[in-house]
């Protein structure tokens, strides 16, 4: 059996097991959510040993350079030396300042950030409840905004989403880790079109990216497809209403069940996204929302010609 190290401690685990499973089995409580390499909850740092590329997929170059890796995708091996992912990971405490309920199942939340935490639009923060429960959420705000804005859909019987949508009082404090993720705009691409597809509360990071593009003076079309079950489920945050006057923005609401929303259509979001890609084939594409739809979108847009290197997806893979 291979032996690896967590800080000073030697841990033995069967070959083929992930470092995450081995650490949890050994009683080391490191956070995890999707266990599939998507959410970056389980970030650790490998200071020595073998780290296959799959354990660093989606990490930024600077993280790779530091040896950061996703424990759920990192097989244990002899000589592997792991430590917590480092000071950047624990960001501090967010304080809930304001909560809007645009629809019965959606909350738009505003938090004041701890000093030094300025996530980019489209990045993820992991919110950690007092009991240690941790869930990732995508950022809708810009670094220069006063508050960090998150959109949370209330999942039936969902632990964290119920806390956030309902029970946490204004003034509540939540620990956060992050920011993570690469669903952010690229520097120097102001002339490249954007195709943003937000399904449900997947709107949050897409709205953030659209605002960021506006802020950075984007000169190419920015298509924002907002998808939802029906017209009532589509919510319009004030930032979106304000942005709709920007000539570069093409806002396209799509609902699965009629009647059609104002200025939008009834249909499959995948078809709407394929049409939008055909209009701007060179677009950089961002997708966010419930996992089954986002995975379908990703596959369809890849087949339709988008390069995987210009196709960024944050599926809301539920925590297992």
């Amino acid at each position, binding site marked *: 059996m291979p032996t690896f190290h967590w800080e000073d401690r030697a841990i033995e685990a069967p070959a083929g097991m992930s470092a995450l499973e081995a650490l949890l089995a050994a009683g080391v409580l490191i956070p995890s959510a999707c266990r599939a390499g998507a959410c970056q909850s389980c970030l650790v740092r490998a200071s020595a040993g073998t780290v296959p590329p799959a354990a660093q997929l989606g990490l930024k170059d600077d993280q790779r350079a530091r040896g950061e890796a996703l424990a759920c995708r990192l097989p244990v091996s002899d000589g592997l030396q792991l430590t917590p992912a480092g000071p950047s990971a624990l960001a501090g405490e967010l304080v809930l300042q304001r909560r809007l309920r645009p629809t019965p199942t959606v909350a738009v939340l505003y938090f004041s950030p701890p000093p030094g935490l300025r996530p980019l639009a489209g990045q993820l923060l992991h919110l950690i409840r007092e009991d240690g429960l941790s869930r990732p959420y995508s950022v809708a705000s810009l670094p220069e905004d006063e508050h960090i804005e998150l959109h949370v859909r209330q999942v039936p019987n969902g632990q964290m989403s119920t806390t956030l949508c309902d029970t946490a009082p204004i003034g509540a404090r939540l620990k956060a880790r992050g920011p993570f993720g690469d669903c952010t705009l690229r520097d120097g691409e102001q002339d490249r079109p954007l195709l943003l597809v937000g399904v449900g509360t997947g709107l949050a990071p897409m709205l953030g990216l659209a605002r960021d593009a506006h802020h950075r003076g984007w000169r190419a079309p920015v298509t924002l497809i907002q998808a939802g079950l029906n017209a009532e489920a589509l919510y319009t945050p004030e930032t979106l209403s304000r942005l709709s006057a920007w000539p570069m923005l093409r806002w396209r609401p799509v609902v699965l069940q009629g009647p059609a929303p104002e200025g939008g259509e009834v249909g499959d979001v995948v078809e709407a996204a394929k049409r939008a890609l055909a209009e701007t084939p060179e677009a950089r594409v961002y997708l966010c929302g419930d996992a089954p739809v986002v995975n379908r979108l*990703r596959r369809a847009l890849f087949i339709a010609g988008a*390069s995987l290197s210009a196709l960024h997806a944050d599926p809301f893979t539920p925590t297992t």
Partner: protein
Amino acid sequence: MASLYERLGGEAAVNVAVERFYRRMLSDERVADYFDSVDMDRQMAKQRAFLTMVFGGPANYSGKDMRTAHAHLVSRGLNDGHVDAVIEHLGGVLKELGAADADIAEVAAIANSVRDHVLSR
């Protein structure tokens, strides 16, 4: 004389070919089911390994590896027709990228040489 891998353009060629090849796989209903994994990044990595190998590049696979990699597909009905389809698309991608016919034939021969391993025969 340059090796096949170098003539085809080495790693850079693999980088260009891999997306086109994977796109063809996903679009061809004869083989799409075998490649239709949610984890597209992981699948891309496997396609990259495939291309590096058949381009004659620095990939050290044994027949045993090829058996192991495809055993679960054989149990799902993988057969000669699927291998033919893969080789056909490989040729199509290489043609698009401007490879010489002789090189395309050599790539097909490498792929064919592991046919029995891939099909667990």
